[in-house]
């Protein structure tokens, strides 16, 4: 051990300073010389193997993954610097975003950049422009295979090209070929989305990163040994795992200016806005007449969390209904919103099943939020209710074999259980859904499942199918956790589960969204919703085709394509006490809207894809989707945006290096990928310095003696 080498040191250390210098000079001189020799030897012991070379023999099977490994197996530092710019204009219920991604190549080779990024769950992407220097190339929608061929041909011919593919409804990939060394190329995307309105508050969410997703299933038979875009390989359940698993790194691991975003949101709400808030960022707000311009206080925000913006209309001006109309290519598109504004004051006796995700992706801040959310949920139980707590990671375990009465005793036990929960392991969600939805439930009680998760899974479609098939009389509510939850999962799981969803972004502000959710869970206020459009059958052109149940504070949204609809829309439904409820909505008072046809097209495409869960859509449906997408210039799973510059940029004798631009680890997350901890102390340095100093001091003393003798 180190200390055994050092132990002789204490006998010698105090001596030099303590010994008087004048008496018996010769003897003390010899003594000092002896000490010096010992010190030199000690020093040699320390410094001798100082510059040992590190031998590298990477062995990936220990579970470590490699980044930025070039073809010849050498480390290469990331050369791509990414800056993004979100410019959002909200008009009424529709938010139009221009997203700029600038890729700067700081390396010496020509590069191809690949970047996997999230967009809002209901974004309809409809425009791509590539900006290289002075040149602006406008992209177009093409069937995915065609776009891929066009892009690859351009890349191999040295032309600059950009392509954007949809991997999941909220997950996209940008590819940018032939970025010159030392220069930057910008990809400009246009997309629009609906703003969420509930309980008198509008909400807009701009995701900037994603939580690394768990890929269930066994690795597919022949993993390709080529350049990998992601850290995961295709599995039997997630065939495109490598395409949706970008490397996720800590903020400190990317270049200083990389992964920063500029955000500017202009809100033209069309009604007086009382206040604008954000649970995720500090805001600078500028009021300009009825429009509000909002930017984060920091000019450049780190892309490690969703940007969430909420605005509330002045209390008396809360909308109860709204109709927007757009004429596009001779067709009328309508967006109708109706807030029933009902609240049933009664509590139903319930059976509540809490399901909490304790997988590795929840580690850190997320699991604390999840625990707090669950405790909050337990606090809403009344003695008439029954409940159970199920946790899942690689395995599913439940606290009680079956639901138990919410007695003080059981609740205390549940609280202790919840507080001890830690996050690690995989995200095998299917067995947890089986456990939560599978049991029959207690007669006479309303069965509700609260699913608390970050949704970091790759097999969403299979899970939705499970929810739909097993739901029975239960309802499923989802609570999104963390800085970058998979909101597509939250929204769709709640839709198939006939429930509603919410998201928590931080521990300090989780009470409000949760109170909203648990309030809604008391009971749906309106079931068996029917919407009657004026005129003959417009059933084929109205989305969502079968509106789900409405909960307190939620609006009913309808998108329709119609040839000149006028008159009244009649919405009817059943109240919790069994009586009928009905409300008309005058379509003639519609305000002009823009981009409604794209929203409609996106809903149409979604409904076509919903017909099949396993991702295998028949050729006819596929052609239909492609047709709609090309007509409305919309990106879908089968159509991509591609822009190709005709003139070649890269001399063909120079190489092109592909580089995956990583995404940032969501803030507060200590997910799956762990950094190696710092495991060295300053001890050797301090000891070495101390010994050297002592040696110099002794040498100086001896010199002085010799000189004066």
């Amino acid at each position, binding site marked *: 051990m180190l200390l055994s080498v050092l132990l002789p040191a204490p006998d010698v250390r105090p001596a030099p*300073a303590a010994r008087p210098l004048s008496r018996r000079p010769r003897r003390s001189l010899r003594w000092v010389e002896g000490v010096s020799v010992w010190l030199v030897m000690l020093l040699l012991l320390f410094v001798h193997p100082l510059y040992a070379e590190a031998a590298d023999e990477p062995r990936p099977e220990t*579970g470590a993954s490699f980044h930025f490994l070039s073809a010849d197996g050498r480390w290469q530092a990331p050369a791509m610097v990414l800056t993004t710019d979100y410019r959002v204009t909200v008009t009424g219920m529709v938010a139009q975003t221009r997203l700029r991604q600038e890729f700067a190549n700081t390396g010496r080779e020509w590069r191809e950049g690949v970047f996997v990024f999230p967009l809002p769950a209901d974004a309809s992407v409809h425009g791509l422009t590539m900006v290289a220097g002075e040149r602006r190339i406008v992209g177009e929608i093409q069937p995915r295979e065609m776009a891929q061929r066009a892009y690859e041909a351009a890349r191999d011919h040295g032309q600059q090209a950009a392509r954007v593919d949809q991997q999941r409804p909220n997950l996209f990939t940008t590819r940018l070929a032939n970025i010159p060394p030392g220069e930057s190329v910008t990809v400009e995307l246009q997309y629009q989305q609906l703003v969420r309105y509930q309980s008198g508050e509008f909400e807009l969410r701009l995701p900037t990163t994603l939580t690394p997703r768990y890929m269930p299933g066994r690795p597919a038979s022949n993993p390709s040994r080529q350049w990998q875009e992601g850290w995961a390989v295709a599995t039997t359940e997630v065939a495109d795992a490598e395409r949706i698993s970008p490397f996720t790194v800590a903020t400190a691991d990317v270049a200083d200016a990389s992964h920063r975003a500029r955000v500017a949101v202009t809100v033209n709400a069309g009604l007086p806005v009382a206040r604008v808030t954000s649970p995720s960022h500090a805001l600078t707000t500028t009021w300009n007449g009825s429009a509000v311009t909002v930017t984060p206080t920091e000019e450049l925000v780190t892309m490690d969390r969703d940007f969430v913006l909420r605005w509330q209309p002045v209390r008396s001006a809360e909308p109860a209904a709204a109709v927007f109309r757009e004429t596009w290519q001779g067709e009328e598109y309508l967006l109708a919103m109706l807030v029933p504004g009902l609240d049933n004051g009664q509590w139903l006796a319930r059976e509540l099943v809490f399901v909490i995700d304790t997988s590795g992706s929840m580690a850190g801040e997320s699991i604390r939020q999840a625990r707090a959310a669950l405790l909050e949920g337990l606090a809403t139980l009344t003695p008439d209710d029954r409940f159970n707590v199920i946790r899942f990671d690689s395995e599913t375990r439940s606290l009680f074999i079956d639901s138990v009465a919410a007695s003080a005793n059981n609740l205390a036990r549940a609280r202790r259980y919840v507080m001890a929960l830690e996050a690690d392991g995989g995200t095998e969600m299917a067995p947890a859904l089986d456990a939560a939805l599978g049991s029959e439930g207690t007669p006479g009680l309303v069965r509700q499942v609260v699913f608390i998760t970050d949704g970091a899974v790759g097999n969403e479609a299979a899970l939705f199918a499970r929810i739909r098939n097993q739901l029975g009389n239960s309802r499923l509510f989802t609570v999104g956790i963390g800085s970058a939850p998979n909101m597509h999962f939250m929204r769709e799981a709640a839709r198939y589960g006939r429930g509603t969803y919410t998201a928590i972004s931080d521990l300090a502000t989780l009470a409000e969204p949760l109170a909203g959710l648990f309030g809604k869970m008391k009971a749906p206020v309106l079931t068996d919703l029917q919407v009657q459009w004026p005129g003959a059958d417009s059933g084929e052109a109205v989305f969502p085709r079968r509106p789900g149940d409405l909960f307190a504070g939620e609006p009913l949204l309808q998108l329709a394509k119609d040839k000149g609809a006028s008159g009244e829309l009649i919405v009817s439904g059943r109240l919790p006490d069994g009586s009928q409820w009905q409300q008309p909505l005058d379509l003639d008072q519609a305000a002009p809207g823009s981009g409604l046809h794209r929203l409609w097209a996106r809903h149409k495409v979604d409904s076509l894809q919903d017909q099949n869960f396993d991702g295998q859509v028949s050729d006819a449906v596929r052609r239909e989707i492609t047709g709609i997408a090309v007509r409305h210039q919309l990106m879908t799973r089968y159509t991509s945006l591609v822009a190709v510059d005709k003139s070649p940029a890269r001399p063909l004798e120079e190489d092109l290096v592909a580089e995956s631009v990583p995404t940032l680890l969501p803030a507060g997350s200590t997910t799956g990928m762990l950094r*190696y901890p710092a*495991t*060295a*102390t300053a001890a*050797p340095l301090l*000891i070495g310095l*101390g010994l050297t100093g002592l040696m110099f001091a002794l040498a100086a003393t001896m010199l*002085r003696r010799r000189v004066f003798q």
Partner: protein
Amino acid sequence: MSRLILLLLVVSAGVLGAGLWIPLKALVAQELLTLAWAESEARQAQIRPWPWADTWPAARLALPAEERPMVVLAGAHGESLAFGPGLVVAGERGRGPVVIAGHRDTHFRALKELSRGAQVRLQHPGGRWQGFQVVGTRVVDSRYEMISTADLAEDVLLLVTCYPFDSVDSNGPLRYVVEARELPHIPAGSTPLVTVAGQ
């Protein structure tokens, strides 16, 4: 001139003392931790070794070169590593992968001596010993590689320390990783230290 020399002497002695304090602290802390471990075993609770500690003994690790097992602390933040190796990834109820990190200059200096085939043992709270056999060592660059906990095998034990062993740089990027796999059975009669709890 002699003042200068005296100053140099005092400063150097101070620096040397500070340098020696680190291994000394590591030694003394292990003594306190052993007591805390025995107490936590006896009372089946997490006992803090000293009142202001932000960590507690989580396991014990027996390396072949050491005659006594080392107490491993929960977590591996900078402060706790000064007192003992830290449990970075802990298996649940004695199953699943375990990753332990320790300071190269103190507790984990002995990792240098571990070679393929050497046996390492780990004691979990509750007294159960788990045997591991070293299957390999390697050097990784922590700037480019991370531990992917999801991909670790169920029966793996990773011991991590800094590399090179004799470097004076305390912020170097290289790490030395010893990988060990669980042995089906621990050799009989291998409970070396009787704790207060009597195992």
